[in-house]
């Protein structure tokens, strides 16, 4: 998948210079009838003549003069993992009702060794849950019963260690699952909040940075307000195994959301589930341009803890963020560690007029 989905495509080219007026959406122009002519006229009026990309369905992404740019391989292979789909892919499992009336959500996890593409043309020999990094985003409601049938088809022993309340034998620490073996994790989803799961086999650093982690979202019983939601698993890859990350990203692929901006709409609530699974580097962060957001630390309370535009994450730390865009256009989000940002942890929101 290489196209920005849904309504990302129906807005105009963003201003990439201060002189350009904002807020003229392609949708507005297309609704006008003589679409192409008007669009061309609009382009000319805006001083954008000759930029035919405007007429194509995909929005043109601003150029950063080489930074984050690619070489001969312009994008990741379309047959592999798609970060755009992943960001909104919430797995509610196979739901059934237990005799006591609670919901049972059942998941099948298989650990497999797989080579994954982490930047256009660069591949990493990963250890994965279900052939993808991050693993599936488990989503449930507090009080649900979670059952994860885990089997290890990889070459090394693995486990799944969930954050949250659960008995000692469900902790994924002592019951090491050897290749070919399996294990069933079962526990209650508690407390509500934004959690994570990861392999807890030693050596930990290797097992985690090779790709065995994912998001575990437990919604409050009363739910959260309606919003456009994205999952951001902040990660990095040490491709030459020198205990330093060569590439950083949210959701694995370096600069993916720069090439394929995430859509949003002016005035709409956007909720980000942000988890830091980075290894080697002690802290990570997230900054959204031209905006401020409410921070719900670990997502375990329904009142925001902070109103800011930059938030720091330790390894394993995660926060739910809520924000609203006031202006249309491309807005950057990235780690405020410039090094991480320029090594892949950088993307755009593509905000359309309401």
């Amino acid at each position: 998948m290489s196209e920005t989905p849904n309504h990302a495509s129906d807005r105009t080219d963003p201003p990439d210079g201060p002189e350009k007026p904002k807020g003229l959406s392609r949708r507005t122009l297309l609704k006008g009838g003589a679409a192409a002519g008007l669009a061309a006229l609009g382009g000319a009026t805006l001083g954008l003549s000759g930029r035919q990309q405007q007429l194509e369905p995909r929005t043109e992404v601003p150029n950063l003069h080489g930074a984050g740019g690619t070489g001969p391989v312009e994008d990741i292979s379309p047959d592999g993992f798609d970060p755009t789909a992943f960001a909104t892919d919430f797995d509610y499992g196979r739901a059934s009702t237990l005799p006591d009336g609670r919901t049972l959500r059942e998941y099948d996890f298989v650990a497999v060794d797989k080579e994954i593409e982490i930047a256009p043309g660069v591949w990493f020999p990963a250890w994965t849950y279900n052939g993808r990094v991050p693993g599936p985003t488990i989503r449930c409601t507090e009080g649900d019963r979670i059952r994860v049938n885990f089997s290890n088809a990889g070459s090394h022993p693995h486990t799944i260690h969930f954050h949250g309340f659960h008995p000692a034998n469900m902790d994924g620490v002592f019951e090491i699952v050897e290749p070919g073996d399996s294990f069933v994790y079962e526990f209650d989803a508690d407390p509500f909040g934004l959690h994570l799961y990861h392999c807890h086999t030693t050596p930990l650093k290797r097992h985690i940075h090779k790709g065995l982690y994912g998001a575990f979202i437990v919604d409050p019983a009363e739910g959260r307000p309606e919003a456009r939601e994205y999952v951001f698993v902040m990660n990095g890859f040490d491709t030459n195994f020198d205990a330093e990350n060569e590439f950083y990203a949210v959701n694995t692929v370096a600069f993916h959301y720069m090439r394929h901006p995430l859509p949003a709409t002016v005035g709409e609530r956007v909720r980000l589930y942000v988890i830091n699974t980075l290894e080697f580097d002690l802290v990570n962060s997230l900054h959204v341009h031209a905006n401020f957001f409410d921070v719900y630390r670990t997502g375990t309370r329904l009142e925001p803890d902070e109103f800011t535009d930059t938030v720091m994450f330790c390894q394993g730390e995660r926060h739910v963020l809520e924000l609203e865009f006031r202006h249309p256009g491309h807005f950057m989000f990235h780690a405020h560690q410039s090094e991480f940002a320029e090594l892949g942890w950088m993307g755009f929101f593509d905000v359309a007029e309401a």
Partner: protein
Amino acid sequence: MSPRRDSGGLAGPLVGFTVVVAIVGVLAFLLARGVGLERAAPPIEELTVDRIELPEPGRIVLHVVNGGPDPVSIHQVVVDDAVWAFSIEPEATVGRLKRATVEIPYRWVEGEAHEIQLISRNGVTFEEEIAVATETPTAGLGWFLRLALLGVYVGVVPVALGLATHPFLTRLGERGLDFVLALTVGLLVFLAIDTMAEAVELAGEVASGFHAPILVWTVAIATLVGLLAVGERRRAGGGTLEPLALAGFIALGIGLHNFGEGLAIGAALSTGAVGLGTFLVVGFTLHNVTEGIGIAAPLAESKPRLLHFAWLALLAGGPAVIGCWIGGFVFDPLWGSLFLAVGAGAIVQVVVEVGRLVATRSTAEMGPWRGEVLAGALAGLAIMYGTALLIPA
């Protein structure tokens, strides 16, 4: 493999044919079936950056060569810890012992250091540093002349100055001349070691697939043997070479050494690795004056014409100019190390020839190891080392 005349009939060709068939058969079998040691792991990737150019602000050009056993695909480039746009010619996948050019539109900073990382399809990283960024001189006439002038300063001028000591050498007595000839041997030994050390060092930078470290020794030895054979023919009747021929050989050996020096200077200048100050040029000049004396020494008892001196100065000093040009424009570690190896071999040859001259001059009762010979040889080494200290490494 060629059959001997007396082996009789078809036996010789038949044996030869059988051996060839056997070799081809074994190779074909191995290629088809493998040797059972094939790697299941990722391929071994190796890439060497031969040369970095900063042709203009905002542009970095890297010349790379794949010296490893497997092809390498360069799919990402990182400059100063930032993923950057780039293009690669002729293609992203560089085959074994093949070359490619990487172009990066990056605003490098004059006088500062930059770190470039090429990342392969398998995430293997190849790092190269720009120690001091400075615009690579373009191949214009001005730069061409500047390099030539530099070559004249460090090569032709000092050799000519050294040759100018000839009238003085002719007035030396027997023992004085022995001293100067031995001094020549000492300085040549120094140059031989210095040149070979540089050849080996540079060979270490060559992509390993070319096996340059063994190649430079082979080339040096082949040069030595070849020149000794040429000298042997010139000598014809035996004994020592006639003075002008010997001076010519010394000039040739020193010329090849100075070619190597020129290469190093030109390359260092074009990559901004050194700021070539007056001090450095003076150091090279002093260092190389001794070379001129060495060339003049065997001519002490003859009366060469001025034209001969001019030719000798050009032969010994001129290659520094060519070296500066090549180093400044198209420096390549493989060719550079090979030229240096040729130089080392040539210098050892003149060590042999001058040594032979010193030996034939010695009287039977004293043998070649007289005081003035020992003192001269040690003085030659000491002077070369002493003046080398004037040149920043």
